[in-house]
C-alpha cells in the first residue's frame, strides 16, 4: 500500500441530491465514523482532491459544473457515484430535465447505490476507489516508462 491510499483527500459535489446522501457523507467525517483516522480530508477544492464524491442525479444545469470540477482535479483521480441517484438517476431517471447518473458526464470508477447511502457503504466505496487510484498511478507510470 503506497502513500496514495494513506491520504485520500475528497471533494464532495451535490448534483441535485435530496441532501440525504450529503448528510451521510458529512456524517462519515463526524466522531462516530471519523474517516480522518485513515487520512481522509474533505478539501472542498478540486485542485487538492483525489476522490470526487458525486451525489444526486445529473441534469442540464449541473452538467458543466461536474465536468469542470472533474477537469480541475490533478491526476491520478477517481470518481465515486454516491447513492442511487448518482448511480443511475434513481427515481428521477425519467424526469424531463434529468440526464441520468453521474456516468453520463464523467467517467465513474465506483458505484455505491443506496437511498440514502450508509456511512459503512461509503467507506467501503472509498476503500475500493483507493485500489483503483493505485492502479491508475501504476498505469500512468508504466506509460511514462514506455515513452
Amino acid at each position: 500500500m503506497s502513500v496514495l491510499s494513506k491520504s485520500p483527500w475528497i471533494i464532495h459535489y451535490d448534483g441535485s441530491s435530496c441532501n440525504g446522501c450529503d448528510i451521510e457523507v458529512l456524517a462519515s467525517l463526524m466522531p462516530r465514523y471519523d474517516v480522518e483516522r485513515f487520512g481522509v480530508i474533505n478539501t472542498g477544492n478540486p485542485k487538492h482532491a483525489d476522490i470526487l464524491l458525486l451525489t444526486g442525479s445529473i441534469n442540464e444545469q449541473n452538467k458543466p459544473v461536474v465536468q469542470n470540477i472533474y477537469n480541475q482535479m490533478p491526476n491520478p483521480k477517481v470518481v465515486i457515484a454516491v447513492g442511487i441517484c448518482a448511480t443511475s438517476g434513481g427515481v428521477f431517471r425519467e424526469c424531463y430535465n434529468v440526464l441520468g447518473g453521474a456516468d453520463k458526464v464523467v467517467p465513474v470508477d465506483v458505484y455505491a447505490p443506496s437511498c440514502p447511502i450508509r456511512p459503512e457503504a461509503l467507506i467501503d466505496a472509498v476503500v475500493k476507489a483507493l485500489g483503483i487510484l493505485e492502479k491508475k498511478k501504476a498505469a500512468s507510470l508504466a506509460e511514462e516508462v514506455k515513452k
Partner: protein
Amino acid sequence: MSIKILLSYLVLAPIVGGLLAGLDRRVTARMQNRIGPPILQPFYDVLKLFKKETLVVRPSQTLYIEFFFVLTVFTGALFFAGGDLLLIIFALTLAGVFFVLGGFKASSPYSVIGAHREALQMMSYEPALMMVAVGMYMVTKSFQITDIIHYPKSLIMVLPGVFLAFFFILPIKFRKSPFDLSTSHHAHQELVKGITTEFSGKTLAIIEMAHWYENVFVLAIVYLFFASNVWVGLSVSLLVFLSQMLIDNATARVRWQALVASSWLVALVLGGANIIYLMIRG
C-alpha cells in the same frame, strides 16, 4: 559548532515540524471527540502530493512558491546559525511577500482574496515581531541570536509584555483560528482554500514543508524568551504549541478589521508599555 546546529536544523526541522503537525491533528481530533489520524499523517500527505500531478494556471506561480520555500528555510537557517534578529525578521517578511505574490499570480478570485488576507496578516504580526527584536536588544544590547541565547537571565522576566504581544500573533503564523484568514487546514473554509487554492501536487507539498520549517522557527523564537534553561525553554515551546490547538478549537475566525485592530492594539499596549518601562528603568 554553529555549522553543526545549522545542518541539524536543515535536516531535523521538517521532521520535527511534520511530527508537530501530526500531533496537532491528533490533539485537535481528541478535542473534537474523534480518534484522529496517525501521527505520521502529515508525511503521508506530503509524499502523496509529490506523486500527484502539478496543475498550474501560470508556470511562474511555482517559481514564487519555490522562492517562498527557500527564503523560509533561509530565515530559520539564519536563526540557528546565530545570526542577526533584525535580518531574520526581514528575511521572514520577504518569504511572506513571495507567498503573497504567488497567490496573486495564480489570479483566481479565491487565491487573490487569500493573498490580500495574507498581506493583511503580515501587516498585523510585523509590529509584535519588531517589538520582540527591539525588546531583546534593549535587554541584551545585541541583535545577535548567539548573544541573546547566552544571556544569563531569563528574558521573560523583563519582557513579559513583549512575550504576550508575540503570543497574541502566534495563531497567524500557525494558521490557526481566530486568525486563519488567508488559508486554513480545516474544511470550514469559505474561500475554498484561500491563498493555496490554485496550488496542487508538488507546489502544495512545498508550501506544506515551508510551513513546517516556519513552525519550528516560530517556536524557536518562543524558546528565546526562556533560553536561560534548556528544559524550561523546550517545555514552554511545546506548551505554547499545544495552547494554539486549544485556541484553534475554542474560537471562531474574526474579520480582518478585528485582526488588524486587535493585533496592533495588543502589540502597542503590551509590547509598547514593556519597552517604555525598559527605557525609563534604563
